[in-house]
């Protein structure tokens, strides 16, 4: 049963620290998405890739967030420096055509 995996599942850090979240998409999927979910804003699309190339990262705060796909089996989302307002659940999803499969999420708490 193929699944999207995310690590870590939970992360507590202090303001100013660097945070890296990792995602392993389902093998064979050609698109990868990063979302952020909060109570106030709901589900927001941060960035997405097709065939490892970034297609759109307009949802990301450019000064502190970066997203990459070093290879087809790994996508990363980095925040540097982190701020309390970054506290949220971050989801990775991978897809083929128009269906997306979500990972379990990384719950980030920035103190």
């Amino acid at each position, binding site marked *: 049963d193929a699944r*999207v995996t995310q690590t870590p599942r939970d992360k507590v850090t202090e303001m100013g620290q660097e945070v890296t979240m990792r995602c392993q998409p389902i093998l064979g999927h050609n*698109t990868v*998405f990063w979302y952020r979910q909060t109570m106030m804003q*709901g*589900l927001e*699309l941060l960035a*997405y890739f*097709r065939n490892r190339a970034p*297609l*759109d990262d307009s949802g990301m705060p450019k000064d502190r967030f970066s997203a990459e796909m070093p290879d087809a089996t790994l996508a990363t989302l980095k925040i540097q420096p982190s701020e309390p307002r970054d506290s949220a659940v971050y*989801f990775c*999803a991978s*897809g*083929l*055509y*128009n*269906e*997306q*499969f*979500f*990972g*379990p*999420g990384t719950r980030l708490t920035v103190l």
Partner: protein
Amino acid sequence: AQSVTQLDSQVPVFEEAPVELRCNYSSSVSVYLFWYVQYPNQGLQLLLKYLSGSTLVKGINGFEAEFNKSQTSFHLRKPSVHISDTAEYFCAVASGSSNTGKLIFGQGTTLQVKP
């Protein structure tokens, strides 16, 4: 630009009662439509999808949805809900022409099933 509106933020219902979660979309092109469910502390899981063909789509866990092009709606229904259906439900739309795979999500509807 495409958008999705879920008309109810919360829907309380008693167990074994029928339920309808409403979703309207706006798009000037052909669309693909989806419903996802999110259980507490989990990611989103696909319930059902409309890509083409029959406007009545059946999904997992006894859910179904009907695509109504004239009303630009894609309402989700279940004839008899269970306590285990308590979750957040998201309607989403993708452009049928751009094929980017990008989905536009609604704000979500919390279904609360009471015993």
